[in-house]
Structures are given as structure tokens and as C-alpha cells.
């Protein structure tokens, strides 16, 4: 009796299981038919490639359809699997998610154009003195804080005083500040005020810089003001934790903060007194969305748009009917770097060492030739990442040298170069030895995170193996973020076991490479330095380079030098995609866009996918 019921049970269980399986596979077929029409068939056959996309087919601007309604409520999703920190002030924030939150209610006083140059269209205009060292800023008359007080020159100067203050506990004190005259004395507590900053009248501020460089005009000025009448009485060390930053922050942007649920959501209402005109939307809600549910949230109209969309989810969802995908080239690149020296902690500069394993430029050249980044881009990223050529990405069209082809995929050439340089297989194990005939094992450090991290690293290792180079993953596994940067040398303690490493850089507004490849840059992880490099970097920020044409030439030279010397080689450029609900109008993801107040919607609720 019991036996039979047991086997019945097993049968029942198997049935349940089969049902579950059927449901799963049924669901996925349906999904595929929906999201991948055409693509799924070709996926199955062996040789036909997969669906490819190109960033050129995307626009950064939303196309408008239909008639906008008055008011409306935009739902904005912040895609992250953690909570945002809630340090909602430009002077104190450190996480990118906080920046996304601040952008809706506070903005910089200076606007910039597509080449990241400051323009006269922002909340403040500026004039430069003959020698380029003195900037006189004038804040427009109609720029007011959310509480009605005018934004004054005092407020702007105040943010310099706060960030330069010895008690300041954020990380924004950098080049934009040290270059201000008298800032260092103030920062060290030797002076009570900053001699280079002068409040001329209520709306006019004058800043004197120690050196005039073209970088000043591309993001070299701290453009954020801080409401002095609110923060005046709070000690600098206590500002970041004050309710004025965390619970009811104010700014002078198009929307006001109404409520904040810590780490989850923010509700904004429109700022009728906004200096560029009354915003069209009544209300904006920002809430955190997990990357695993972002597609569902968009399809069901829970959000209109998101700050960034996981690009790997695009190919399966490209046909989503209720959104338009906007796209542009991301300000970032992935690279592979070679250790060419160490960090000299005393002198605070790099110390190139000609005896390093990777010191031979031919070896580095061959390794670049050996990898097929076009195939990587197409197969892993469906063309949404693509072969990179130089160290200034095309997101900076003015300075990216599109004529420079980098080094192409050519394994035969790689072998040739290695043969000529004396890297030959002398002991017959299929792997090349170094010119001295010693075993050559190259240790490769790569970071974990993201699905493709591991197959990608393994693909590179296989490619190098094909040209006869024995590359091993450091410790046989990927390194966790903190471990990776510790070992690569973010503190200057480079792990001698690391020979080559794969990382990624996001690029600032200013293309000046000094911070990543300069002689005294700790982020110059390959520890490369040469006189030619020093000269070009210096020339790029010299007064002569105020002439953009000259600066371009200098940076083309520098990009060429990097392709010849290869301290690192760029592997992939990236694209950035953002889906926007069809009801949204006047939206854009371009870097220079500042039209939040222009956004409008054509119906009360977001459209849903069919």
C-alpha cells in the first residue's frame, strides 16, 4: 500500500517538474518570438552571425509624436541594485546615483556645449582677462533658489570656501581648487579667506587662477553654488549629514524636492520660478529599480525612462513597442595595460623599469595584433561595443583622431613580430620563451563583475595562446574590484605578480590625459613615462593650446605616440542606451542637454507594451 503511494508521489513530482519545464520553455519561446523576431532563427544555425546593431543608428534625442498635454507626471527609474546614498548636494556627493538625483533640482551655473566647452548660455555668463587667468562671472538676475532667495556671488564663493575648508569631508577638492590663487593657504588653515576669489557685487564673482590652461574652459571651474543663507550656521564637518542635504535639499533647478524616502525614491514638483521658464511637467517621481526587473518596469509603464539601461539586455528587447531607444557613444573605453615600471612613493611619480617582463615594445605590439576586438564587440555585445583605436574615445569628436587606425587584428603579423624580436619556442612546448630562452609566463589581472567579464578574459588568454604566448589569469581567477585596484596599484603598492591587466576608464569632460598617463599620476597604472609623452601632455595644456586647432594637433600626436609605445592599448569603445516611453517629448541624453524643464508628455499615464 505504502509503496505504491510512494511511487505515485514520485510520478506526481515528475509531472510537476515537467510542467514547470514546459512552462519555462514555453515562456521563453514566446519571449523570443516577441523580442527577437527573425534573430532567433538565425541564432540557431551555426554560421550566420547574430543580430548586430550600430550606435550610428541611434539618436540621442527623442522624436516627438502627438500633442503634449498640460502638466503631467514623469516617472524616472534609477537602475541600481543598491540604495542611493542620499548625500544630495553637489559639493558633498560621491556616488553617481546621488548625482542623478541632484540633477533634477540643482544645476551648474555654467552650461557647456557638445565639445564640453563652457558657453554663455548657462545661469551665469563669464568674461576672461587678456592673460586668461582672471574670470569674471555674472549670475543672471532671475536665478533664484527654491525658497525665493536670489542665487548670489556669495553663494558661489561659499562653495569654494566649504570645499577648501580644512574640515571638509568630501572628495571634490582637486585641480579646480588648487589652481585658484590663495586656495592652498586657505586649505592649510593659514588664511581666513581665499585671496583669488572676490565677490564684486551681489551677482558678480571674480576668480583669479594661478595658471591659465585650456582645461579651465572644459570643466576646470567648479560651477556649483551652495545656498549660504541656509548652510552658514552649520559647521563644515556636519554639513553632509545635515537635514539640509539629506531631507529637504534645495537648488535652483527646474524641480523642487517634495519628499525623499531614503535610498528608494524622491518626488519632485515643478519650480515655477525656474530661470529658463516654467517647467512643463507638474511632477517627477524618481525611484530605484533593480537591473533584473528594468525591462518589466518599462514594458508595463511603471517608469517612463531610466538613467541607464543594461546594454546586454537590449538585443532581446529591441522591439519593445512602447519605448524609443536613445543612444550615444559613452565617455569610456576598456583597455589592456602593461606593467612597465613601479611607483616611487618618495618622489610621487612613476619609475619606469626597462627590466620589466613587458618592457619590450614588440611584445606589446604583438599582443595587440593578436586580439580580435571587432569579433569581441560583435559576438559578446552585438555590435554595441566595438573595436577601439586610440586613447581618446569618439565621445569627444573634436579630439578623437578618427584617422588613426590603432593596430588591427592580425595574428600572423603578431607571430612575425615575436619571431623577429627573438620570442621563440626553444623547448618545443608550443609556447614561446623570451629572447634569453627563459620560460615566459605573463600574469593577467582582470576584474570580476558583469556577466561577460570571465569569458572575455578567457578569450583574450586564448587569443594570446594562439600566437604562442603563455598568459595566465592571475591566481587563476578574476579579481574582485577592490582587490584588483589594490594589486594594480591604486595606493602605489603595485603587486609585482601583475604583468598585464584589463581595466576601463571613464573619461572626464576635459581630454587632458595627464591624470591617467602623466608622470606623476598614480592612476598611470602601467607606470609608463617618456620625455616625448611629458612634452605632449604639457603642450596640450599650454597657452598655445587655447587655440583648439593647435590642441587637436598635439593630442593627435599624443594618440599616435600611444599607439607606437603601447603602455596600454584600448580594446573597446562603448555605447550608452536609454529607453524612453513614447508619451515623453523633448527628451535627450546628450551630455550638453539641459532641457529638463522642456520635457512634456502626451498622455496622463505611460504607454504599455502591446
Amino acid at each position, binding site marked *: 500500500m505504502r509503496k505504491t503511494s510512494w511511487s505515485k*508521489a514520485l510520478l506526481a513530482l515528475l509531472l*510537476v517538474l515537467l510542467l514547470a519545464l514546459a512552462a519555462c520553455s514555453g515562456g521563453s519561446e514566446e519571449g523570443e518570438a516577441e523580442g527577437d523576431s527573425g534573430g532567433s532563427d538565425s541564432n540557431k544555425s551555426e554560421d550566420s552571425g547574430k543580430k548586430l546593431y550600430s550606435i550610428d543608428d541611434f539618436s540621442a534625442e527623442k522624436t516627438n509624436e502627438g500633442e503634449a498635454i498640460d502638466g503631467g507626471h514623469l516617472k524616472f527609474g534609477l537602475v541600481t541594485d543598491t540604495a542611493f546614498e542620499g548625500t544630495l548636494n553637489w559639493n558633498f556627493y560621491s556616488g553617481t546615483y546621488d548625482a542623478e538625483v541632484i540633477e533634477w533640482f540643482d544645476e551648474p551655473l555654467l552650461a557647456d556645449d557638445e565639445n564640453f566647452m563652457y558657453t554663455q548660455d548657462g545661469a551665469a555668463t563669464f568674461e576672461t582677462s587678456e592673460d586668461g587667468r582672471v574670470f569674471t562671472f555674472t549670475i543672471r538676475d532671475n536665478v533664484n533658489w527654491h525658497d525665493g532667495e536670489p542665487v548670489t556671488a556669495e553663494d558661489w564663493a561659499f562653495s569654494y570656501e566649504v570645499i577648501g575648508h580644512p574640515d571638509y569631508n568630501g*572628495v571634490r577638492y582637486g585641480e579646480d581648487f588648487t589652481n585658484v590663487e590663495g586656495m592652498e593657504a586657505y586649505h592649510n588653515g593659514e588664511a581666513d579667506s581665499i585671496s583669488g576669489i572676490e565677490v564684486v557685487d551681489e551677482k558678480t564673482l571674480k576668480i583669479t587662477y594661478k595658471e591659465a590652461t585650456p582645461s579651465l574652459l572644459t570643466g576646470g571651474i567648479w560651477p556649483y553654488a551652495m545656498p549660504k543663507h541656509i548652510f552658514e550656521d552649520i559647521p563644515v564637518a556636519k554639513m553632509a549629514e545635515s537635514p539640509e542635504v539629506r531631507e529637504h535639499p534645495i537648488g535652483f533647478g527646474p524641480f523642487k524636492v517634495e519628499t525623499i524616502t531614503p535610498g528608494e525614491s524622491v518626488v519632485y514638483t515643478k519650480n515655477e520660478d525656474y530661470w529658463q521658464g516654467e517647467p512643463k511637467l507638474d511632477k517627477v517621481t524618481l525611484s530605484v529599480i533593480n537591473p533584473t526587473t528594468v525591462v*518589466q518596469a518599462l514594458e508595463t509603464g511603471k517608469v517612463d525612462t531610466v538613467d541607464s539601461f543594461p546594454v546586454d539586455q537590449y538585443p532581446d528587447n529591441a522591439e519593445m513597442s512602447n519605448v524609443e531607444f536613445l543612444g550615444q557613444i559613452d565617455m569610456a573605453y576598456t583597455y589592456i595595460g602593461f606593467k612597465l615600471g613601479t611607483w616611487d612613493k618618495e618622489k610621487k611619480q612613476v619609475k619606469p623599469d626597462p627590466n620589466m617582463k613587458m618592457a619590450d615594445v614588440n611584445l606589446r605590439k604583438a599582443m595587440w595584433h593578436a586580439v580580435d576586438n571587432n569579433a569581441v564587440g560583435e559576438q559578446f555585445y552585438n555590435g554595441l561595443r566595438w573595436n577601439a583605436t586610440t586613447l581618446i574615445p569618439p565621445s569627444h569628436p573634436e579630439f578623437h583622431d578618427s584617422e588613426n587606425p590603432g593596430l588591427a587584428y592580425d595574428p600572423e603579423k603578431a607571430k612575425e613580430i615575436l619571431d623577429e624580436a627573438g620570442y621563440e619556442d626553444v623547448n618545443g612546448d608550443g609556447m614561446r620563451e623570451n629572447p634569453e630562452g627563459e620560460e615566459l609566463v605573463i600574469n593577467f589581472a582582470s576584474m570580476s563583475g558583469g556577466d561577460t567579464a570571465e569569458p572575455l578574459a578567457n578569450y583574450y588568454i586564448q587569443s594570446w595562446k594562439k600566437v604562442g604566448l603563455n598568459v595566465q589569469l592571475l591566481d587563476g581567477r578574476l579579481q574582485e*574590484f577592490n582587490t584588483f585596484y589594490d594589486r594594480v596599484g591604486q595606493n602605489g603598492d603595485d603587486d609585482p605578480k601583475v604583468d598585464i591587466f584589463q581595466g576601463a576608464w571613464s573619461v572626464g569632460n576635459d581630454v587632458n590625459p595627464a*591624470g591617467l598617463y602623466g608622470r606623476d599620476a598614480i592612476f598611470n597604472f602601467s607606470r609608463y613615462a617618456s620625455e616625448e609623452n611629458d612634452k605632449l601632455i604639457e603642450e596640450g595644456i599650454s597657452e598655445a593650446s587655447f587655440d583648439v586647432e593647435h590642441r587637436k594637433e598635439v593630442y593627435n600626436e599624443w594618440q599616435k605616440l600611444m599607439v607606437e609605445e603601447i603602455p596600454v592599448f584600448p580594446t573597446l569603445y562603448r555605447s550608452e542606451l536609454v529607453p524612453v516611453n513614447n508619451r515623453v517629448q523633448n527628451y535627450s541624453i546628450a551630455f550638453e542637454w539641459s532641457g529638463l524643464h522642456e520635457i512634456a508628455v502626451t498622455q496622463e499615464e505611460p504607454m504599455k507594451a502591446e
Partner: protein
Amino acid sequence: MWKFIVRRLLITLPQIVLLSILVFVMAQMMPGDALTGLIDPNIDPAAIEEQREKMGLNDPWYIQYGDWISSALQGDLGQSFRFKMPVTDLVEQRLINSFWLGLVTLIFTYIIAIPLGITSGRYNDTMRDQLITGYTYIGFATPLFIFALVMLWVGGFQLGWFPTGGSVAPGLEPGTFEYALSKFQHLLLPGLSMALITTVNTVQYLRSEIIDTKQKDFIVTARAKGASESRVYNRHILRNSLLPIAAYFGFEITGLIGGTVFIETIYSYPGMGLLFMDSVLQRDYSVVTAVVLLFGIASILGALLSDIILSLVDPRIRIK
């Protein structure tokens, strides 16, 4: 009994101190610190180094520990670097969220486990029992993160029955009725997803307890005396089988404040589990230390509570 409790609490103290030292030593051994995440060409490395120096991150662990313990004794657990706010405030926010989520999960767990466990134990080896046992097997083999995700897709997005993320709808004023209602609605789906998976342990446990109990002599005696079957189950078996479950309750308390990384990540629910994982990954050590100690104290108290309940249930485990 009271002497026992006081003594156990006294032993807790060195355990906590030991734990706090351990956390500091490990913090030193972990690669990176709170500022490593800020590797960004837009931020000056010198500014980072300055903050590092200011926060004492360059000091050896025993100096950091000394600083920490002297202010901890005055009730100050330090500042979170990442959130730039006092750790106590931060933990308080998250703890409240986790507590409610834990409570709802616990209630669901018992609502599911008790009837299923009783049915399964009472009618063991029948079709009903097989089905329930089948469910527990599936529960064992299903990873929580996949299940929670599918529940969210189906219940939150496709059917639209539940809110899809966060702990409360945006824009509501704390203290109002709508706020409380919205909080409750946001707890249902995550609580249910977690309970459906974690309850299988309790079902299994209850089932085997009942099967054990119903063959014991006193039950046989009760039956022989002519007690009705329902009386036997409700009065004798159930009471005896539920007690060990009650003893388990002490451990559940720990889970109540611990939160769960999986559920909190998928439902974007800012609770303790998420806070702890983020803080460890981002090396926000003042938060890590506070949370580890909080967990430690809670689980020691939980174990104590379990021992007390057990000793009440089972006189053989005497408390001396």
C-alpha cells in the same frame, strides 16, 4: 534560572569584544578601503589621500580600534563614509525596514508551515502528505533569488497585484494611514516569496515531530483510554510537537533583524541585509562593525532565548 540568564549575559560581553577585534583585524586584511571605489579621473587622488589620512584609514588596526572603542563606549558608533551620516541613524532606518519585512515573513512562514506540517504528519504516507512533501523538496531545490524574481515578474508586473519595489510608495507623508497601508502592501510580495521557500524547513521539522510524537507511549495511552482522534491530535500531539518549533523561535529573531540580501536586492528594499553587503563590498567599515556587532548580540540573545524555551519544554536539559 535568573542566575543562569545573568551569567549567560556576562559571557556575552567578552564574545562581543572578541568579535569587534576580529572585525577590525579582518578589515585590515581586506583589500581596499572606503575610498577605493572612487577611482575616477575626475577626482584628484591627492584629495582621496587627504581624506584617508583624516579618517585615520592609514593607521594600524589597533589604533583605529582604540579610537573606535573609546567613542563606542560613549555611544558613538562613528560616521558612515559612504552615506556621510552617523552609523546609528543609518542602522536605525534600515533596521525598522528589516524588522517589518522579517515579521511579515515570519507570520507567513508559520501560516503556511503549521497547517501543512500538521496535515502531512497526521496523514503521513497518504496522497496529501506526498503532495506536501513534494512541495518541500521543490522548495529545497529552488534558489531564493530565482524564485523571488519570478514572483516579482508575475505578481508585480504581469498581474499588477503588488507594488514592484521599495518599502513605500513615493510621496506619502510618514504617519498617515495611507503611508502605513502602503508600507504593508510593499511587504506582502517580498514576505510571501521568502516565506514560500524558507517555510519548507519548518514543514519538514513539524512533520517529523508529529510522526515521532504520535507513536509515543502517552499518545497510545490516551487513545487506549478512548480519547477521540481529534482530541488526541489537538490536545496531546500538537502541543508536544509545537514546543520544539517554539524553541526555534529564538533563532528566527536573528533572521528578523538580519534581513536577506536576495530579497532586498531584487525588491529594491533598503534593509539590513543589503546595507551589510554593500558596506562590506564598499569597505564602509564603521557600518560593517556596527552591523556585525548588532547581529552578534541579536543571535546570542536569540540562542539564549531558545535555550530558555528548550529548558522549559524539556526538563532533561536542566539549567543549572
